[in-house]
């Protein structure tokens, strides 16, 4: 059985997008691919959730965007992390750590 497509935990998508963009600016397809890759296909982000998230995050000032060219040579909109976005990523990492530790502990308790 292949990897199951899992519903993204509320708020997790933003964190994954921020994390994905720490290395380099990427366009929509690139972000979705990267997330799918690093999670071994567990998370497949469709455009219906990816693009609303990107636009929302840009409005909050976490990302900025510019048109550029992909490796294949066609125009696409690339997203880049802003300094506010980096700060947000740190905050979300912290939050995620707290949550995951708490949940694991709860599940391991007999």
């Amino acid at each position, binding site marked *: 059985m292949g990897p199951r497509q899992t519903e993204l935990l509320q708020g997790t998508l933003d964190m994954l997008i921020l994390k994905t963009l720490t290395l380099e600016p990427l366009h929509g397809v690139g972000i979705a691919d990267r997330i799918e890759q690093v999670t071994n296909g567990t998370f497949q982000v469709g455009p219906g959730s990816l693009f609303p998230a990107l*636009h929302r995050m840009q*409005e909050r000032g976490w990302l900025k965007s510019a048109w550029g060219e992909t490796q294949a040579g066609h125009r696409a909109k690339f997203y880049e992390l802003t300094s506010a976005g980096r700060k947000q990523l740190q905050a979300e990492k912290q939050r995620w750590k707290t949550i995951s530790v708490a949940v694991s502990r709860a599940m391991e308790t007999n």
Partner: protein
Amino acid sequence: MLARFRSFVRNLFRREKVGRDLDAELDSFLEEQVLRKIAQGLSRDEAMRQARVEAGGITQVKEQVRGARTGFWLETFLNDLRYGARGLRRSPGFAMACVLTFALGIGANTAIFSMVNALVFRAVHAEKPKQLAYFVAHQPELGERLFLSQLYGDTARVARSLR
């Protein structure tokens, strides 16, 4: 906060441009999916069809992005207003009835309020309103009754402290 305000203004006043930008972005997304499928050996038509299906309807995606934007509520509110105005124009009889109902309601309210305002809330039109008083005559066989104004002159002559 500032970034959000800026995009709010941008979304409102440059709706066309924001919309075109989104169209272009989603077009390029779709195009890339199509190219990938062609590289996998599909015909262009089939690749387009599959990419569209996988994207879950581009119009729907656009709608979702619009819904995520700041100022979305104002946009929908303005749409509702426009829709309402069109509806009224389409049925002038109904519109007329509405206007008349409002006119009647507001008119009646104003009339009643003006009256109550003059009688109850405003100071009595007298030189020294604080010195005004009610006089009640106690007559065991007749019960209480308001002092008649004709009697005022007689009383005033007898009781000097009234003035």
